[in-house]
């Protein structure tokens, strides 16, 4: 069965410094992977997704993630954090099959200090 593990429940960075949110996946095949962001009192928004094309995926707001099969990782990065990046981030894998159910990690709360 597919699963994702977000290695940090909370990450705190200073504005202007790099962001790294870690995610490891478990799957017996090459999965579809996503990062979603959830701002307080707002809906989940897709940041980026990997679906077996290029392993380095660029998303919105300057975020990107790299699919590394050898490490079973899909870490999310951004070169320079902005105050508006403070939110909850979810690493997600798509359930295998034709229906696309999503399996979410427990989330990483990103705090950005001025």
């Amino acid at each position: 069965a597919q699963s994702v593990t977000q290695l940090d429940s909370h990450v705190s960075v200073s504005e202007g410094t790099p962001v790294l949110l870690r995610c490891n996946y478990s799957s017996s095949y090459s999965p579809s992977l996503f990062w979603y962001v959830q701002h307080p009192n707002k809906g989940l928004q897709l940041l980026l997704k990997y679906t077996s094309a290029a392993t380095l995926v660029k998303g919105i707001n300057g975020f990107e993630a790299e699919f590394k099969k050898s490490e079973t990782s899909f870490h999310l990065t951004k070169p320079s954090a902005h105050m508006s990046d403070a939110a909850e981030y979810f690493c997600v894998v798509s359930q295998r099959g034709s229906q696309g159910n999503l399996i979410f990690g427990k989330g990483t709360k990103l705090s950005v200090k001025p």
Partner: protein
Amino acid sequence: GAGVSQTPSNKVTEKGKYVELRCDPISGHTALYWYRQSLGQGPEFLIYFQGTGAADDSGLPNDRFFAVRPEGSVSTLKIQRTERGDSAVYLCASSSLGLEGETQYFGPGTRLLVL
């Protein structure tokens, strides 16, 4: 265009009562999903509709939970005899075809509080 909408945004009810939560997906999307997000957790899958039919309801926790999508558009999640443990944010998402790897678009959720 319009995104996924959910009503009500908040619902407070008493233990034992019946509640209905509504989801209006993006127009033309055949796939509709319900998820439940408990405090401090990631969303968990409840049920998936392809058109009017529930293609996978394996995530529904028990028979108090039921969902319908009679015309293949709007869906209603129904919870009978609510319990305090049902308190959570209920999220709805839709996608064009319901295929693996497709982007799902989420609504803002309904926050349910059972007293």
